[in-house]
C-alpha cells in the first residue's frame, strides 16, 4: 500500500459516520414548500398586475406602440479565470446564499438570483487566485497591500449587509450590530450616519444602466491597534492603513450590489483610473 495512503487511513480510522439523511430530506421538503408558497404569491401578483395593466390601458385608450424591452442576448464574454487576464471583456457570476453567517438573509427571504457581471479588463490585471471576484494587478506579489496595492472587488454585499459600530475589531468580537435595510439608500444613509466612518458626499451614478450611489471611504492612517479594520459584514477588511475604497452601491432590479475599487494614496494615479474605467464598463445580466 502507498505509505501516504496508509497514513491517511490511520488518520481516518474510527471516524464516526456523519450526516443525517432524514434531516436533509426534511430540509429539501421545507424548501420546496416555501418555493410553492412564493410561486403562488408571484402568480397572484402577476394576475393583479395584468388586471391593473388592462384597466390602465383601457383608460388611456392610447393606441401608440409601446417600447418593448429588448430581449437579453446570451453573453459571449468568457468567465473570469484565475491568473493573468488578456485584455478584453469578462463575466463573473455573482451568487448569493442565505446561509452565509453572520448575517444570513432577513427573515425568510430567498437569496437573490445569480447575476452576471460583465466588464472590460485592460492589460496588466489578473483574477486573484482563489478569490473569484477580485481583480488585482498581475505583476504584484502582494497586490492588495499598502503602500501601492489595488484591487477591484466585484459584487460584494447584497440585501443583508450590516455595519459594525466599532470597525476596529478583533477576531471573535461579535456580529455587526447596526442593522441596515435592503435598499441602496438604506446602506448609503447608514454609512453616512455612522459615527466613525468618514466618507465623501454620496453622489448619484448609473452603472450598466442601473441607478446607484457612489462614495469614497478611507480607512484611518493608523490601524495598528486593530486586529483588523472592518466596517461592515459581509465584506472585507482594510488591506492597510489609509486604504481607500471607492464604493458603488447599485440597485440592480431591486437587489443591492456593491462594487469596490480598493487602492492607496501611494498607488500610481493611472491605476485607480483603470479601476474606475473597469467599473464604468460593467453591465449586468440576470
Amino acid at each position, binding site marked *: 500500500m502507498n*505509505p*501516504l*495512503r496508509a497514513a*491517511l487511513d490511520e488518520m481516518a480510522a474510527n471516524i464516526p459516520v456523519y*450526516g443525517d439523511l432524514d434531516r436533509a430530506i426534511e430540509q*429539501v421538503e421545507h424548501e420546496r414548500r416555501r418555493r410553492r408558497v412564493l410561486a403562488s404569491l408571484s402568480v397572484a401578483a402577476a394576475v393583479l398586475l395584468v388586471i391593473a395593466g388592462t384597466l390602465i390601458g383601457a383608460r388611456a385608450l392610447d393606441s401608440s406602440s409601446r417600447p418593448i424591452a429588448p430581449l437579453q442576448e446570451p453573453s459571449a464574454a468568457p468567465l473570469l479565470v484565475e491568473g493573468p487576464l488578456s485584455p478584453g471583456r469578462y463575466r463573473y457570476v455573482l451568487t448569493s446564499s442565505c446561509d*452565509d453567517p453572520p448575517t444570513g438573509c432577513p427573515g425568510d427571504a430567498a437569496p437573490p438570483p445569480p447575476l452576471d457581471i460583465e466588464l472590460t479588463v485592460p492589460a496588466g490585471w489578473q483574477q486573484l487566485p482563489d478569490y*473569484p471576484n477580485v481583480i488585482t494587478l498581475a505583476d504584484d506579489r502582494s497586490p492588495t497591500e499598502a503602500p501601492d496595492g489595488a484591487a477591484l472587488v466585484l459584487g460584494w454585499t447584497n440585501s443583508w449587509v450590516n455595519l459594525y459600530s466599532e470597525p476596529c475589531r478583533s477576531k471573535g468580537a461579535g456580529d455587526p450590530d447596526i442593522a441596515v435595510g435592503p435598499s441602496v439608500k438604506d446602506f448609503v444613509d447608514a454609512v453616512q450616519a455612522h459615527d466613525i466612518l468618514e466618507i465623501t458626499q454620496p453622489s448619484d451614478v448609473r452603472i450598466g444602466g442601473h441607478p446607484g450611489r457612489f462614495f469614497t471611504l478611507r480607512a484611518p492612517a493608523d490601524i495598528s491597534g486593530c486586529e483588523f479594520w472592518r466596517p461592515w459584514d459581509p465584506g472585507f477588511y482594510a488591506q492597510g492603513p489609509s486604504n481607500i475604497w471607492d464604493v458603488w452601491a447599485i440597485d440592480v432590479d431591486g437587489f443591492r450590489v456593491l462594487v469596490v475599487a480598493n487602492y492607496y494614496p501611494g498607488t500610481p494615479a493611472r491605476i485607480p483610473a483603470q479601476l474606475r474605467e473597469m467599473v464604468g464598463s460593467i453591465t449586468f445580466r440576470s
Partner: protein
Amino acid sequence: MDREAELREFVAARGAALSRAAFLLTGNHQAAEDLVQDTYVVLVRRWQKTGALDPEAYVRRILFSRFIDNWRRQRLRELPSAWLPDTEDRDEFDPAADRLTLREALVRLTPRQRAVLVLRFYDDLTESQAAEVLGVSVNTVKSQTRVALRRLRELAPDAVASFEGVDS
C-alpha cells in the same frame, strides 16, 4: 425499489467513506459533519430531480466542491493581507521549534492541495479523474500535488519520512 429507498441504500453504503473523506479534508469533526450534511442536502435535491445519476461520482464532486467553495466564501470576506497580525490562522512555521503531526500539517495546506492529496492518495483516483472532480486541469492537479507533498515534507518531516518517495 423506489427512489428514496435507493437513496437510503446508497447513503448507508457510502456514508462512512464520505465521512472519512470529509474529516481528512476539514481536519475537524464539526466541519466534517457540516460538510457531509451539506452534501446530503444537495444530493437529495438532485436525486429528486433526475433519474440518471452516477451517485458515486456525483456525491464526490459535491463533497469536494462544497468544501472548496465554503472555504472560498469564508476567505472572500477577508482578503489576504500579509501585514495584518493573524493570531489564529498563522501560517508561519518554525520547524526547529515544533514538529507537526501529519494531521496538523494537512490542515495547513490550502483546501485545494488537501483535496488533491485525498483524491489521489486516499480515494486512489487518477490525475484526470481528480481533475474532473475538482473542475481543474490535469496540470493543476499535478502541480498542486507536487506543492502539497513538498509542503508536507517541510511541515512534518518526521511524519513524512515514512512515505518519502511518494510523488505525483
